[in-house]
């Protein structure tokens, strides 16, 4: 199941959040060797792990096996701060109902064969999109290696590029906006043959996007 962790219920997930940052160290620092990441005591954090971040934790039998996060685009976020060149043509999307979706990862033994495979990544994608839809997020801003584009399109997503592909640390990356609709949530679940509920919201009582004060 994919657990939604917002500022409201974060206190219920302290140990799982710590596990997440350990796994992120394994995946992003050790395995993928991303440049510019800092880990302390084997836990990887960046400046976009903030009080506003919404985390998604795939938990199986009490063990964190994958996850992802979303950040509001009205606050500092990856695209705006680190790689704005990815949005050179269309500009950086900034809106109360647009969130940036980053750091989708799974532990090695839950990648289920093939680069995308099935299993936990499918649950993470489907759950995150369903959450976005439920919370009236109109679009998600994301960055990915350009060669993933055809596969993401096969999920039934409309992928609106924000700029030309850019070379980042020797790989071609693309920044894009994906509008959230009932149809694309449905097609993503169908793509991963998921028919059961995926999201768990422990102790969440408030909507994500609140009335302006």
């Amino acid at each position: 199941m994919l657990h939604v962790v917002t500022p409201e219920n974060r206190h219920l997930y302290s140990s799982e959040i710590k596990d997440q940052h350990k796994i992120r160290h394994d995946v992003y620092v050790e395995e993928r060797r991303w440049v510019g990441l800092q880990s302390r005591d084997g836990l990887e954090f960046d400046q976009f792990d903030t009080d506003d971040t919404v985390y998604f934790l795939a938990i199986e039998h009490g063990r964190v096996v994958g996850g992802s996060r979303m950040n509001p685009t009205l606050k500092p976020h990856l695209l705006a701060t680190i790689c704005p060149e990815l949005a050179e043509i269309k500009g950086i999307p900034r809106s109360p109902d647009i969130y940036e979706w980053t750091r989708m990862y799974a532990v090695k033994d839950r990648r289920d064969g093939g680069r995308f495979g099935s299993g936990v990544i499918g649950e993470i994608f489907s759950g995150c999109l369903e959450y976005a839809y439920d919370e009236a997020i109109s679009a998600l801003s994301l960055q990915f290696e350009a060669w993933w584009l055809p596969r993401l399109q096969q999920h039934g997503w409309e992928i609106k590029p924000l700029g030309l592909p850019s070379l980042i640390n020797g790989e071609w990356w693309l920044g894009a906006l994906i509008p959230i609709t009932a149809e694309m949530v449905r097609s993503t679940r169908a793509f991963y043959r998921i028919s059961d509920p995926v999201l768990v919201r422990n102790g969440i009582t408030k909507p994500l996007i609140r009335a302006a004060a």
Partner: protein
Amino acid sequence: MSAKSVDYANIAFDLIDEFDRSFRPEQVVGCMSTALGRFGFSSFLVVDVPEITSNARPVFLLNGWPPAWAEHYQGHNYYKDDPVAARCRRSVDPFEWSEATYDAEKCPRAAEVMDAGRQFGLHDGFVVPIDRHTGTMSGVTMAGDRPDFEPRAKRAMHLIGLYAHAKAMSLIGREDISRPASDLTEGEREVLTWTAVGKSSWEISVILNMSEAGVVWRLKQAMSKLGANNKTQAVVNAIVAKQISI
């Protein structure tokens, strides 16, 4: 950034928009050829590049190739010796034809394939490999007499290649994903129920402590799911379908 560089990005983005408005293969080939012409390409091909077996043939997904060249290529079974196809099978990064190197001694026919292409006006080209989750690689290849390989132009070609492949696949017809009728979400039910008793979107946003835009969004989604053109109809349809009660 020179004015010419801005043009290349705009050509790519305008073409992607045009793809959204095009529904027949001829339309897509037409607007793609026109756009690529501005980079110096005279033709293009979206193609599957299967692994080499005794009778492996490339599968044309969207054909903008000169007919005589396609015939010559298939007739002479160039595929197994084509160094461009070979590199496309092994790479996810785009490359120029000139970067598809080969050992002339080990692959004597490779030179013959490239020379034959030149006879048909395809002197230089660019390839965007496409990784499909099926395990087969595809590619979008574009060629001409003297294309512009300035870095920004290549980035624009890269983007065009990625979207052209998706367009080609949609024209062929992807597997239909079954669409069961969907129930309203709890949020959609909530806003519809308050609407049913006469509350405005603003009032509902206060009652539910969410943004007004969020209320409007949920109403729109509910209308879409219920096949309604306005809020009143949505309320009626929802009550009939037993999705809400007041």
